[in-house]
């Protein structure tokens, strides 16, 4: 009797365990699931200026959101078949692993350990960032090596503190880190002189400076103490879906390179360039190889614009964030953006 109970209990545990650890049944089928649902579930930041934020009408705007819209255009031929799932940094990967979202587009840095230990795959880098340091010009500091015993304001980030440690420790520079939970407090602590230095990704530093009463008072030091390539993330073992996300991003980049914009994409259908023809689906059947409509890339550009247009719309110099392209410029113009050929 006792034995039977034990046997049953063991069997039950095994069944439960196999249910938990079994390889995902949907591994190859994200596209099917997405089509069936009629919507892409896209994990974004709850609110992050420039990347994912609400406009006055509560519509999600920003660079990361637009990347999701591009994927939606590719799959559905319409940019609005996206359901944005706001996720904090601490639950973003689990949400992807458990199938709560199909793609994570949330200022996520691609790193070796994330790529190889989480059961996830990174798409192409959409934004090259790096952690920087900003100081008050009154300090007269010109370089990070001149810092000593500085109080450094930071957010309880994922890698921010570790990057500081990695950079300062080998150089024998002592510092005091002051951590803030809230964005506004963190910023104001720096403005009010609680800290000598404020640190975060350079793109964020620019927006912090834009908020200051007198932006000229603050200097971003030349050192970039870490590499932060931000990329969309998908689940591992679904190459079709990964290809769709990757080539949607490449389409944005390639479109800028070939001078295709939201406004002139219809004219470009007449283009004599074979590569443009293949990309826009005038010739060849690239779309079918992705299991998508042949107009997929045309739809992305027509409905969202190219990379440059996305950038200028959310982050560029005409926005309050006022970011310059920097490394996020086409390789032909001295930047790092490079799309493999469409052939």
């Amino acid at each position: 009797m006792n034995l039977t109970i034990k046997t049953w209990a063991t069997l039950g545990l095994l069944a439960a365990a196999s249910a938990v650890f079994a390889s995902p049944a949907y591994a190859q089928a994200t596209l099917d699931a997405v089509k069936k649902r009629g919507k892409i579930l896209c994990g974004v930041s709850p609110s992050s200026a420039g990347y994912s934020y609400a406009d006055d009408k509560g519509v999600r705007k920003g660079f990361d959101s637009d990347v999701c819209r591009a994927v939606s255009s590719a799959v559905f031929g319409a940019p609005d078949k996206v359901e944005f799932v706001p996720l904090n940094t601490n639950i973003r990967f689990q949400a992807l692993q458990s199938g709560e979202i199909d793609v994570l587009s949330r200022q996520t840095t691609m790193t070796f350990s994330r790529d190889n230990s989480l059961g996830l795959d990174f798409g192409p880098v959409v934004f090259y960032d790096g952690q920087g340091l900003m100081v008050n010009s009154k300090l007269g500091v010109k370089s990070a090596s001149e810092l000593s015993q500085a109080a450094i304001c930071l957010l309880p980030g994922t890698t921010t503190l570790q990057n500081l440690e990695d950079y300062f420790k080998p150089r024998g520079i002592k510092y005091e880190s002051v951590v803030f939970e809230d964005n506004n407090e963190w910023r104001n602590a720096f403005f009010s002189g609680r800290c000598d230095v404020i640190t975060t990704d350079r793109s964020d530093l620019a927006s912090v400076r834009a908020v200051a009463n007198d932006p000229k008072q603050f200097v971003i030091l030349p050192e970039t103490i870490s590499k932060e390539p931000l990329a969309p993330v998908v689940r591992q073992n679904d190459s079709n879906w990964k290809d769709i996300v990757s080539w949607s991003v490449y389409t944005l980049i390639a479109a800028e390179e070939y001078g295709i914009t939201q406004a002139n994409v219809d004219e470009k259908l007449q283009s004599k360039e074979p590569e443009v023809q293949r990309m826009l689906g005038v010739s060849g059947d690239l779309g079918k190889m992705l299991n998508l409509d042949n107009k997929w890339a045309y739809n992305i550009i027509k409905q969202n614009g190219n990379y440059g247009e996305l950038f200028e719309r959310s982050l560029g110099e005409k926005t309050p964030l006022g970011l310059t392209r920097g490394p996020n410029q086409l390789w032909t113009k001295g930047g790092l953006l490079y799309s493999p050929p469409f052939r």
Partner: protein
Amino acid sequence: MATAAEMDALNLSRAVLPPRRARSLTSLKPYFGTPLNALITLVCLWLVYRVVTGAWGWLVTRAIVEGGPQACKAGAGACWPFLAAKLRFMLFGFYPYDEHWRPALAVALFLGAIIFSMIPRFWTRALLWLWLAVPILCGVLLYGGVAGLPVVTTTNWGGLPLSFMLSFVGLALGFPLGVVLALARSSKLPAIQVIAIVFIEVVRGVPLVSILFMASVMLPLFMPDGVTVDKLLRAQVAIIIFAGAYIAETVRGGLQAVPKGQHEAAAALGLGYWLAMRKIILPQALKIVIPPLVNIFIGFFQDTTLVTIIGLLDFLDTVRASLRDPNWQGIAVIEGYVFAAFVYAVFSYGIGSYSRFLERRLKTDHERSPGR
């Protein structure tokens, strides 16, 4: 049976009562009676004056009434255009703009039902039906999918309706759970008692944040592949469980405060356990615990903002999200938080005043009954 006259004779006459304490503001004696009192009064008056003029200057005199972010950045007063531009987002979050009437109507229905139920004249059985109907109606309004209303999935819910829903549904369902747990914990059956104790102590021993976190991170990993439980539902269940454990301990305190004689009297009348509880013990116990319960209610209304850590945007979070709009970033921070504080204060004050009314209304013991 004592006659009324005998009762009167037994009761001490009012003349013996101590004189009512002078409470009128017209008498200056309490404020300026001694030099120290006078000093304290003057300091307080000065503080009040500074706060009031300061607030008035910020809110009205120096306020920026029109213009955009640039005007607010240049000015020194409250930035009303920020509130005007962001009000609907703060209230309703990412709910589709053209459908905002739905959450608005749901909140109105809900508040209407609450105000209606607060009035003692309407305390009838019909209220029960009202409270079955209203939440369902609100849910249907918010979710849609019937009568041509487009479906709005819960990921887009946010703002004030979400705050209300999480806290009030949490408390409404947590309350019966709490009462049952309290009864179980004071039960004479060991098995039931142990289960209740373990449940209550485990839940109370863990912060709400970690329960929410478990519900949103761990639970999906244990689910079969492809099966996901709605994130909002998970948070809601976590809050119900948490509220239940806290309410249980409060109610248990009330149960213990009911004199043993009441139990014995009920037993002497031949009432069984459930009947005695329902008719005699619980009404008294619950009446005793109104103040601490209200405390829990107000606390929970504000604690629900913790759902921010799992990415749900309740009212405080939609306010914070508005502050992240690049156009307004760093410009209207105080305005956002003052507005949030104002809204929370209004509702918390409302709950508090009603509880004071309820205490007076349900007061059945005699004014001068000797202390227990």
